[in-house]
């Protein structure tokens, strides 16, 4: 239970907010049949492929399943390393 300090400051997470956040994740996985491990594997394999062609920083890559209404979308954000030159040959 949150204390009175938390209540006054509004810093505690209500059970409704917790429910909403948990459901967001559950519904993404239910709708796509993707577990979070699947997403991790997808990310690893995708990075291997990309790194064959371009130099990237694996720590900066983000792969997310976003939803817009009932539409799901896989969004990959892959920043290239600074000073990247196109490799020839």
């Amino acid at each position, binding site marked *: 239970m949150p204390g*009175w300090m938390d*209540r*006054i400051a*509004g810093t505690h997470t*209500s*059970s*409704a*907010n917790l*429910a*909403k956040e*948990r*459901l*967001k994740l*559950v*519904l993404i996985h*239910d*709708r796509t049949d993707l577990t979070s491990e699947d997403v991790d594997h997808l990310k690893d394999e995708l990075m291997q492929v990309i790194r064959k062609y371009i130099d990237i920083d694996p720590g900066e890559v983000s792969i997310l399943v976003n*939803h817009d*209404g*009932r539409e799901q979308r896989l969004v990959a954000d892959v920043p290239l390393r600074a000073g990247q030159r196109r490799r020839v040959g």
Partner: protein
Amino acid sequence: MAAKVITVTSGKGGVGKTTTTANIAVALSMDGAKVVCLDGDIGLRNLDVVMGLENRIVYDLVDVVEGRCRLRQAMIRDKQNSELYLIPAAQTRDKNAISPSDMVRLCDELRPDFDWILIDSPAGIERGFRNVIAPADIVLVVTNPEVSAVRDADRIIGLVESEEKGPARLVINRLNSSMVKRGDMLSVDDVTELLAISLIGIVPEDESVISSANRGQPVVNDTKSRAGMAFRDIARRLRGEDVPFPPMEVKDDFFKKLFRVN
């Protein structure tokens, strides 16, 4: 007349499908429309007791499908409203006794004589679900503002879309506004944001729903009941009226928290 077929479904059991079906049916018949309810929950019938018609059953839906009686013989007239009928489910059979095409044929036979056909669904996503979804023109998904009910509603909404019966419309049942205000229940906005379908009704938690069902009198007949009013509003929206939703709960702000005694 060419009736519209409304299927009321949910995925999860116990969220109020049967109550919703009975009350919307009564509300639709209140302005003189001809309405027939079908209990699609073969083996676990309940629409008859909620409507108070359990003592009048002679034939059921499976009897009609298997040719033991004519359609008219299985139709039970409501006690109060002469334009409202029920076709009960069989109690001693299971969902495999009928097929989706049986349900389509049955509804097509009823369509010319009615304005609305309401179908109550069994819980679950298997054969029973496919039976009741096959003839639907409009699908209503009932949920409660709870994690398990919302999750199952999402699954059902996806199935309704894949059967090309979408978009389904949402009924949020048993909303407790004081719990929402305390932050202990998902709000209407939370649920509609998660499920991303349009809302057709918000039914507040109301003890008179249970006491009315005890008497076999759907709560919509009770003019003082808030739940009854919510069901009447759903019926008006189905008829195409633009009925505003009652004002939403406001989330507590800092000052309300400050002055509330816990």
